[in-house]
């Protein structure tokens, strides 16, 4: 889908080339993450694909065609583009921002409107609420979402993303990453993704290209990168605790089936049954759900002693730690550490209870792997 052949970029006045004789191929529907320290040429490489930078020598093929011979405007209109600072247009509403490419392509008004609304919904922003706001009225995370919606609105087969989740706090970033992966599973774009964060690379990438000083050091799957780093530089980049990094590679739903845990308690469960459930449980607690199986709270051993009442709802505490099943094990770990508990309740998008993951489960995964 995207192929770079012997691509070199030398900026005027610079002694060394920013990108040196680079060969890279990204398959259709794959996410290729370019990773490396700042100044390694990863952003320059990405920006040559839509010709923001013109290569000094070499060839770039996009969908089999020589990109350097195409009209750059036409090329760019079919490549979604998100940069770190997002670059939303401050004088336009969210709707107008997202409609940028459709307007450049002269789509009919109603088609644009429909597609813009659909896109905003896809990234989790209600078009009724946010459509007419200006970017300055949005939070950082919301702006990132708009940036992604704007890049995807005309359904381009290729997306270029330069640290698209860079400017938000770690928790929002994890959520945006998970949402994006969920969307990507459905739309299967070919994506070139730039980051300096190896954890993000491992999480997002179907393949990872490690760069240094303008050279491509290793291009392989995340698993390969972790198990057999090509040289010391790559080994240092992925770090010593590689088995922990593997937690990034595994999604909660992949292990949820295997873990065997006490069933949740309905809100109207009588006291005796609850006691039995809690003592059966390896987390000495039991999750409480309502009639629709939605997560309501949790009852621990101490709650049974401290409180009085007849049914589960009387003893229940609010539960702080819940996570969706498409998050990674690493996300689950951070949620547990943050809540100071050894378990996390897993729910789906509608808050329906799916199961519980414990620290022990994570340990087992790491042990099996190493």
């Amino acid at each position: 889908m995207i192929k770079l052949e012997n691509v070199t970029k030398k900026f005027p006045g610079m002694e060394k080339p920013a990108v040196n004789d680079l060969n890279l191929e990204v398959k259709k529907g794959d996410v290729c993450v370019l990773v490396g320290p700042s100044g390694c040429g990863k952003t320059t490489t990405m920006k040559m694909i839509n010709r923001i930078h013109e290569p000094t020598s070499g060839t770039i093929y996009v969908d089999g065609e020589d990109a350097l011979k195409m009209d750059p405007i036409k090329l760019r209109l079919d490549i979604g583009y998100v940069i770190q600072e997002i670059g939303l247009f401050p004088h336009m509403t969210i709707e107008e921002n997202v409609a940028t490419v459709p307007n450049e392509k002269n789509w009919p008004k109603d088609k644009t409107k429909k597609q813009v609304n659909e896109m905003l919904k896809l990234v989790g922003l209600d078009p009724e609420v946010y459509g007419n706001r200006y970017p300055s009225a949005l939070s950082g995370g919301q702006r990132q979402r708009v940036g992604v919606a704007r890049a995807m609105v005309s359904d381009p087969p290729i997306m270029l993303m330069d640290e698209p989740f860079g400017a938000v706090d770690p928790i929002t970033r994890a959520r945006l990453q998970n949402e994006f992966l969920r969307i990507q599973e459905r739309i299967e774009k070919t994506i070139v993704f730039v980051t300096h964060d190896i954890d993000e690379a491992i999480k997002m990438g179907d393949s990872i290209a490690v760069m240094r000083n303008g050279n491509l050091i290793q291009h392989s799957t995340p698993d390969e990168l972790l198990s057999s780093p090509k040289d010391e530089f790559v080994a240092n980049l992925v770090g010593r605790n590689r088995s922990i990094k593997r937690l990034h590679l595994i999604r909660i739903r992949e292990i949820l089936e295997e873990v065997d845990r006490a069933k949740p308690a309905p809100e109207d469960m009588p006291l005796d049954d609850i006691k039995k459930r809690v003592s059966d449980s390896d987390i000495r607690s039991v999750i409480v759900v309502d009639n629709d199986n939605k997560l309501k709270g949790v009852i621990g051993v101490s709650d049974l002693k401290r409180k009085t009442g007849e049914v589960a709802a009387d003893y229940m505490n609010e539960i702080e730690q819940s996570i969706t099943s498409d998050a990674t094990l690493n996300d689950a770990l951070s949620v547990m550490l943050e809540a100071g508990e050894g378990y996390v309740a897993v729910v789906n998008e509608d808050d329906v209870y799916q199961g519980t993951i414990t620290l022990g489960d994570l340990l087992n995964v790491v042990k099996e792997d190493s």
Partner: protein
Amino acid sequence: MVSPMISLLDLLYAAGNRAALLTQAAAPSTFARTIQYIQRRSDMLGDLVLEHLWLVVVSVGIAVVVSVILGVVISYRTSLASTVLAICQILMTIPSMAMLGFMVPLFGIGFTTGVIALILYALLPVVRNTYTGIREISPAVVESAVGMGMSEWRVLTKIKIPLARPVIMAGIRTATVMVVGIAAIAAYVGAGGLGELIFQGISRSNEPMIIVGAIGVSIIALVFDFVLSWGERRLAAIGKGGS
């Protein structure tokens, strides 16, 4: 910026001196005679005000078109920027009397000569603000526009100019208020307007004429300033959440 102000102040100062001399001598106060003058010559005054407004609107209008184009050009060719801005700066520092003096042998006497001189004075604020307004746009905004496939012309008209507009408007306001003042002196080369009243008042030692002319010029300047700064605030509000 300095010279036209001084010329205008000089006129006012002269008017004040004469008024002081005369109040000692003659019976009806200057104030009363000024009111009388306004009542008697209101038709002519209205014409002069319109003439003055026309002079300002035509010169600022042309200056804005020229300056915005110049400002845009130097935002692309930054090597030219310092030269162009320096030339505009020099034009602005020429005393207005001298500037009009230069113009007469070239363009003769009349409205056109006045307009040309006023255009030259109005260039700097608008060129400079257009240039800085465009340069101050976040590079990320421009890059994402280009990266999404907007042509350079579309980026200019849809992104750069709208974003620089509040800054450009501020430049236009500065230029307009300044031109209102200098336009009074353009009467010297027969461009018309309230300046005529002032010049005639000086030569006839008729202080009500001078006062009416000077106050008229100030009121026009204040009105322009008010209206344009209101417009500026409206433009600035867009994109800041309000509209």
